[in-house]
């Protein structure tokens, strides 16, 4: 009886992998079945056997998709035994001695093994990114998430977007599973590069950055270095990023009152010959950020977009309350343009003839 059911699930998985189709009737069936513990168990067993040997590189996208669809929500920490079965006979088995199929620990073990086997193979960049952005959601279903630390560390060392995504997983490991990861903040600091505002994963990165720096127990020197670096990056950032990053810096300042010297340094010395802050220094603690001042902000007062100027103005009286940023991470410039397209009414200003106008474009270009 049980064999027939197992065969059914195995056939389904085989078909899916064979077709390599991410969407379709089979996939929806698979998704539905994976909510049941027994089906999932059979599927995982089958996948564990095959992922190592039979499935080749070109099958990786579909395998990853299957992995993503393994619904482990039933396997919570407090629960020892599973009860949600699709086939009646499975529950009949469980009436006696608890079978493997109904044990949470067994499920977790299988799940972990499949993932680890999958990650052992060499992954192309696109799949690598997908895996890294999905892992933080499923880490808790591993028997020990620390098993991922090697993989994540390696990913971090690759640099670029991948290291950025790896940081999310690493942070969870450090935060919840006591991973001893030295110089975590140095590594985050190293990721701050002018190009981050032009990346596809900009919103995610900003969100993570805010998350990493949400602790109030960080050293003020470290936070000051982050603030300084961020401000430096903002000099070249597009307006939509500015609207998100400026409140973020304000939040950091609100969290760390010791950093207020950056925006207000009373005393005799009003000028510095060169900025004491060294933006090329890899170690944030040695960047001398605390000795500097946040003159970049003053510069942004001249930004062409008036909302940015408004944000900068708020630095004059910093409040102790933090601002909610959740809406700002995903801000798009298209939204800004639509927001600006207000109603044109009678009082619209226009160029009155006779006033001197700049004519750079006609000096440099002959239009027709």
């Amino acid at each position, binding site marked *: 009886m049980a064999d027939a059911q197992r065969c059914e699930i195995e056939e389904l998985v085989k078909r899916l992998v064979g077709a390599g189709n991410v969407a379709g009737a089979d996939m929806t069936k698979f998704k539905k079945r994976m909510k049941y513990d027994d089906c999932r168990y059979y599927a995982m067993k089958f996948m564990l056997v095959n992922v190592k040997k039979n499935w080749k590189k070109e099958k990786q996208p579909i395998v990853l998709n299957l992995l993503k669809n393994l619904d482990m929500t039933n396997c919570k920490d407090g629960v020892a035994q599973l009860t949600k079965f699709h086939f009646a006979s499975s529950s009949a088995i469980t009436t006696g001695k608890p079978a493997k199929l109904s044990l949470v620990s067994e499920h977790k073990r299988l799940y972990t093994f499949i993932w680890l086997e999958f990650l052992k193979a060499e992954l192309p960049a696109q799949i690598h990114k997908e895996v890294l952005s999905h892992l933080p959601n499923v880490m808790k279903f591993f028997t020990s998430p620390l098993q991922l630390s090697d993989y994540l560390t390696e990913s971090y060392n690759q640099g670029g977007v991948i290291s950025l995504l790896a940081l999310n997983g690493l942070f969870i490991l450090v935060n919840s599973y006591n991973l001893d990861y030295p110089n975590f903040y140095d590594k985050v600091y190293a990721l701050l*590069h*002018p*190009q981050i505002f*032009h990346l596809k994963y900009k919103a995610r990165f900003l969100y993570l950055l805010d998350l990493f720096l949400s602790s109030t127990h960080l050293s003020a020197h470290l936070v000051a270095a982050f603030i300084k670096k961020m401000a430096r990056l903002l*000099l*070249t*950032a*597009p*307006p939509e990023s500015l609207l998100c990053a400026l409140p973020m810096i304000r939040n950091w300042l609100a969290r760390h009152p010791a950093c207020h010297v950056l925006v*207000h*340094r009373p005393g005799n010395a*009003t*000028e*510095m010959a*060169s*900025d004491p802050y060294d933006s090329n220094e890899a170690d944030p603690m040695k960047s001398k950020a605390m000795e500097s*001042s946040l*003159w970049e902000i*003053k*510069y942004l007062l*001249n*930004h*062409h*977009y*008036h909302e940015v*100027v408004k944000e900068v103005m708020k630095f*004059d009286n910093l409040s102790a309350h933090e601002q909610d940023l959740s809406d700002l991470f995903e801000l798009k*410039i298209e939204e*800004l*343009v*639509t927001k*600006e*397209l*207000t*109603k*044109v*009414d*009678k*009082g*619209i*200003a*226009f*160029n*009155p*003839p*006779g*006033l*001197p*106008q*700049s*004519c*750079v*474009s*006609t*000096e*440099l*270009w*002959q*239009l*027709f």
Partner: protein
Amino acid sequence: MAKARKSKTQKNSKRIASDHSKFVNPKPLNPFELKINRQKHDILGRKVSKHEVGKPLQSRKKAIKKRKETLLVEYNNLGKSNSIIDRRLGEYDRNLTTDQKQLRRWAKARKYNLADSDEELGPGETLTQFNQASADADHFDGFSDDSDDGKLSADIVAAEHFGSGHQPNANKQETNEGVTSKTHYERMQEILKKKNEEKLRRDIVKEQMQTKRQQLDEQLKANWNRIQEHMKGAKERFENEELERGKISTLKIAHNKLLFEKRGTPSERLKTREQSDQEAKERLNQLETERLQRMMGEITEEKSISADALTSGEFLDQKIGRRNKRIHESGNDEENEKDGNDDRSEDILGLTNDNNNDNDSNEEERSSKSDEEESDDLEDNYDNDDDDDDDLECSDEDGNDESVEMKVISSVSNTKADEEILKTEDVINQFEKKLSSFCELLASYELPSSDVLSEMTLDLIEMGTKSPVAAGQVMCQMIEQLNSMLCSSLPRLETLLFLKLVGSIFPTSDRRHPVTTPAMLLMSKMLNHGIVRNCHEVVSGLFLVTLLLEFVSLSMRFVPEAINFLAGVLFLAADRPSDKEQLVMLNFRSGAKSNPMKLTNCEIKEIKVSVPLNLCQMLSTESLLETDELRVNCLAMCLDLAAKYRILYGSLPAVEAIFAPIKNFVEHLNLENYPMKVKELSENLKDLVSQKVVYQYLVKAPKKPHSIKQLEPKIYEKFDGRKKLVGPQEWRDKQLASKKCKKMKKDAERELRKDQRVLQGHIIKETLKRKMIKDQKVKNILNSLASQEGDWRSMKKGKKTDL
């Protein structure tokens, strides 16, 4: 003394009571029930309070009564979902005895039963009407009338009704029943006949009327067409005449318009040249200050500029430019002659002067620019020489430029009335049509000649400045459209020129403007997201950067995208892929395989760097050839622009950090093969970029210290014994509101307390009553028990005694 006072109060109270009783209560009030707030002293000017006299007992009684009617009812109904209401007949009528009630009910029931079964009458039951059996009504003849309105004509009524006609019949009825019935029948027949005849007659008349009306209608219809045709022809003829007249002398009309324009009374002194100069200068200064205010973002609502200021646009009419040049050459400075007394004409000529500066050949530009530098920007456009008449003569001389002249004159005569004629809806449509045709032309495969294009641009700008609202709306739509498009490559020619148009119609220095702000955001988006794949995209990007420079040149606003783009172009020119890390934007990466700025030929020293570059030629779809010449020109332009930006931002701090990537790329630029001009430009840029800046620590503005509150005498301007709130209106309103709220809360609490008291009183009364009844019952039982006991004892005793 005390007695006297008492008697006085009593009198007073009596008076008040009697006054009151007149209106409200006929029953005289007990003077002891009144509470009088007597004033000890009469103070002049003080308002007498409203509540001099109170009737505490009465009001309390009233309040309790009200509570009993509402609160207690509610209390009694508490927990009851329904109750029985006795709706039997006469149940609540106190005047009826039980028997009477019973009788009524029985009668009603009987009636009801009868109505239910009116066909089957019981034995001995007959239906009656006014005490006569309704069965007898069969003899009733009914009304013979069947006219439309259901009424009998007056004479029939007079003759037959109310006994007059019936009288003889009635008499006959007594003598011979058979005959009377027959005669009656005949009479009725007659009446009917008459009636029908009359009806027929009426119908015939009606029909006749109908046919007549129809005939008339048809006649009118036939004539109507003819009438209409006639009127149409007349109108056309009239219009044709008008047109002919217009053709003959549009110039004359314009001239007449100018002549008949309202200018003030002849008795007034003519304005001297200095005066009109002064006025023009003041007006321009005013406009400039308004612009500055908008730039600083100080005023929130923008003032509209009067229609007087509405004249033609400001950039490039080649024809006007050429014409002015010609006049220039004739040495008379005739270009300014038109100014005369009219401010508006001054504007235009000032403008054309500007155009001249902008658009003519290089040398001309330089010279006029130097002129500008010499004299004040505002003033130099306003030296006047001659009168209107001379100007007109001059225009006549320039025969082939008459159309331009017409335009100028028509724009001069642009008054508010003209503005009103151009209704917004129409203008919007017109502008939209023109703009779209302009863009279509630019996007088409074969570009039209530059004359046509410049004519169109001038037209658009003129229209835009005349009706900025319409232009703004159309442009906003366009921007929205562009915004919704995916922006994976840099914009094409039509978009670039559209953005240029935006800049020349609307002020770009404003902090916030409904058209230019989104346009600038759009440009920033284009530079940020557009991917640079070939040389044309570099050109397009460079033009955008130039436009941005033009937009911010007055306000000195910071546009990081422009700098990033320039850095990107320099990166491509330097051709060192290892420096990619220093690049801010990623859109230069994907094209790195085939670098658009990489030179194909080494022999490029002879290439002449030409300024200005011709945008249309370079971007038109015809010439997709990527030549080294174009590349060199692009590099030169890029270097030039970077230097201009550096000069613009020179006064800002942080310029060093922003130009760091540019500095790096310029230093790595390999210019060995490039022409001298490029080398010069790069040297210039290097010098500029290596300038040092001083950084300043951020220090917040010192806060104003709060003054310590001191004990000072409070001085009222006008003392009336009452406290007055002093402060801003908003604060006062808030105070008053909170006071009112407090008072209302207090009142409500008091009411609640009173409610509670009434309720508790009722409850305790009920409980006591119940307790009393219970006690009574217990007492009775005990009594009866005691008597029983007594009986039993006595019985026992008796028995004992018996025994």
